[in-house]
């Protein structure tokens, strides 16, 4: 069975290589190859899952050692995989949702002449992501980590003839690199502390070193997680990443890659458990991002950017949960999985809408689409209900648990975190209701574009609707399946540990409070957007709205401080290099030249001048001789 693990990664990797190197010959069948290999990975994952279920809970982890990667004196990096329950969860999510999105893309990218390459990139992403979750050491995880970054870069910039897409891709990669820097420093720290960076030895040895070191490692890991999971302060790339094709947004920037940070924190649970200060920082980051994303999501008129804000916010929940320690790990992962379903479904729905609306993304130009695209409406609606936490649907179970856990943190922190989580739930209900109302209800507001092409909203082809339907099922039932009887908890407990939290108020109270804020949020949105006609041109809005539209000015800050500052720095350095460093050298050369120019004037070519100097020289020699004899 162990030997199958490598196949999980190898199948999509093979797909990527074949599709990218295959050339135009494969244009006709490329998407089928890509989809088949993704599905192949999923099937292997299922086989392994079934096999795993058949084993005793404590002995489910599988290891596969492939080869020694970097053997250097005192430094051993291996290519080795580890498949335990946590990895298994991710494998199924990644390959499952991934396969669905492959199917969806067949229809979505039908008219793109570079579809083959798109599938190649998608396969590359799957391979890297699976490598990330299957690695048994941090360095191999780092390979997958950067690999998904690369795939994300390629996919965001897939339509690279658009300068905005190319810029967004570059930005995503760069911001991620800042996070990666954190990961590499964390690995270095581990190496100097533990002499290794394989999960097993490192996590076992956490007790043998100081809390300070562990806090440092944990904070560096958090930096990495912030980069990949778009958490404050490295969240700015996610909104721009929506420049990529919508399946990319669904797969990478909603369901899988952005959750890698949560995976990293949960995987390194022992380190965080031993570093409470770092945990506190994690929860703070999660809470801040939760609100940040939600506020941004309220203000965006671009449907994908609104959903991106929502993603940020939901991952904030997960990070918050992961920061709570053993009481939250399981719920973080559970929310991650359910979120994978409904957010992927929502994005695919958004893609379906755009597909029918000539790639229009401005929700102010939608309206009343429920009659034109019924399947999309229903699936999107189910996703909507799931995300706001409508009782009985997936989001209800997972989010509710996180809110409970946040209160269970105890003390003032618990109250603050729980309050923030509740507030987030309200805002989530508000902005999701807004998206729903603006898109599917009300008057139709679309107009012909400048070429006179009026959109003709229509339902998407089968290849697109089927994945949406499957994901809608997941959105509805996954939470229930996981939560009822604590199945998910028991499944993950051997890996992540679990401690039951004791909220200061009863679970029922929390649930009721959540219901109340949900109704308040959704109701406010209905009052604002459902009862009045929607202006096609966005009103100026309040200061907060305007700031939120601009991602709460974070980009402006980055632009002024980092981009401008960086430009000035490099420009002045180029100047310094040219004038100072080079100037010293050239100056030496010039002064040499000047000196010899002066000296040359002595050589005036007149024999008599030379004779004088000879004569003077002779006189000096005689003087010297006389002096020597006199002395």
């Amino acid at each position: 069975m162990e030997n199958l693990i490598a196949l999980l990664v190898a199948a999509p990797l093979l797909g990527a290589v074949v599709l990218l190197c295959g050339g135009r010959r494969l244009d006709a069948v490329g998407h089928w190859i890509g989809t088949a290999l993704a599905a192949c990975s999923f099937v292997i994952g299922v086989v392994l899952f079934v096999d795993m279920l058949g084993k005793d809970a404590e002995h489910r982890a599988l290891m596969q050692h492939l080869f020694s990667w970097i053997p250097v004196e005192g430094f051993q990096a291996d290519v080795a995989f580890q498949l335990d329950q946590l990895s298994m969860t991710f494998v199924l999510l990644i390959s499952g949702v991934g396969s669905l999105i492959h199917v969806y893309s067949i229809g979505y990218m039908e008219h793109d002449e570079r579809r083959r390459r798109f599938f190649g990139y998608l396969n590359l992403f799957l391979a890297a992501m699976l490598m990330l979750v299957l690695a048994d050491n941090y360095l191999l995880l780092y390979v997958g980590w950067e690999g998904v970054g690369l795939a994300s870069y390629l996919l965001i910039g897939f339509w690279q003839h658009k300068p905005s897409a190319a810029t967004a891709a570059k930005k995503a990669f760069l911001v991620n690199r800042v996070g990666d820097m954190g990961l590499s420093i964390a690995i270095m720290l581990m190496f100097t502390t533990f002499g290794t960076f394989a999960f097993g030895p490192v996590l076992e040895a956490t007790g043998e070193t100081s809390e300070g070191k562990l806090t440092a490692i944990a904070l560096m890991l958090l930096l990495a997680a912030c980069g990949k999971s778009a958490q404050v302060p490295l969240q700015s790339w996610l909104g721009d990443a929506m420049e990529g094709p919508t399946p990319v947004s669904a797969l990478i920037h909603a369901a899988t890659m952005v959750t890698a940070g949560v995976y990293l924190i949960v995987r390194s649970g022992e380190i965080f458990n031993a570093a409470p200060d770092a945990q506190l920082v994690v929860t703070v980051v999660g809470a801040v991002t939760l609100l940040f994303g939600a506020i941004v999501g309220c203000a965006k008129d671009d449907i994908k950017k609104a959903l991106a804000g929502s993603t940020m916010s939901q991952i904030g929940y997960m990070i918050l949960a992961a920061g709570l320690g053993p009481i939250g790990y399981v719920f973080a992962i559970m929310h991650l999985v359910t979120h994978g379903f409904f957010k992927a479904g929502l994005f695919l729905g958004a893609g379906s809408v755009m597909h029918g609306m000539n790639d229009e993304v401005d929700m102010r130009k939608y309206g009343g689409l429920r009659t034109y695209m019924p399947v999309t409406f229903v699936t999107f609606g189910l996703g909507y209900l799931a995300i706001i936490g409508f009782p009985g649907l997936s989001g209800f179970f997972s989010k509710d648990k996180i809110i409970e856990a946040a209160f269970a943190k105890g003390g003032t922190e618990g109250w603050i975190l729980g309050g923030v989580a509740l507030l987030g739930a309200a805002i989530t209900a508000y902005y999701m209701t807004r998206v729903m109302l603006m898109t599917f209800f009300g008057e139709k507001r679309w107009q012909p574009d400048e070429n006179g092409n009026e959109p003709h909203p229509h339902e998407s082809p089968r290849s697109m609707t089927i994945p949406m339907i499957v994901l809608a099922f997941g959105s509805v039932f996954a939470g229930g399946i996981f939560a009822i009887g604590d199945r998910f908890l028991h499944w993950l407990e051997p890996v992540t540990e679990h401690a039951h939290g004791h909220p200061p108020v009863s679970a029922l109270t929390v649930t009721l409070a959540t219901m109340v804020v949900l109704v308040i949020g959704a109701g406010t949105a209905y009052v604002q957007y459902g009862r009045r006609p929607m202006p096609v041109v966005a009103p100026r809005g309040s200061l907060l709205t305007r700031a939120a539209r601009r991602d709460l000015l974070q980009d402006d800050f980055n632009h002024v401080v980092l981009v401008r500052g960086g430009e000035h720095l490099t420009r002045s350095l180029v100047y310094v290099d040219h004038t100072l460093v080079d100037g010293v050298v050239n100056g030496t050369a010039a002064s040499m030249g000047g000196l010899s120019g002066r000296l040359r004037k002595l050589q005036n070519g007149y024999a008599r001048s030379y004779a004088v100097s000879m004569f003077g020289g002779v006189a000096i020699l005689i003087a010297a001789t006389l002096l020597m004899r006199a002395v």
Partner: protein
Amino acid sequence: MNPVNYLYLAALLFTIGATGVLIRRNAIVVFMCVELMLNACNLAFVTFSRMHGNLDGQVIAFFTMVVAAAEVVVGLAIIVSLFRSRHSASVDDASLMKL
């Protein structure tokens, strides 16, 4: 009188000749000054010969004369051909060594 006075005279004549070489521009006059310097040397040699009581100094002076004769012949030939091509006997005109 001590014959050393001849040496002082020789030194004086040599210095005058050398200064002449440096000051005059006419190549012929420069040449004459060189001859003056050679003659001053000869005087010194002859005086040395007398002071030491052997004829070696005179022999050297003799050789100096011969060499001076050869030098004058070649030198004047050079001046003549120089004059022919440049229509001038000024040593300053031959300053091609300058860049």
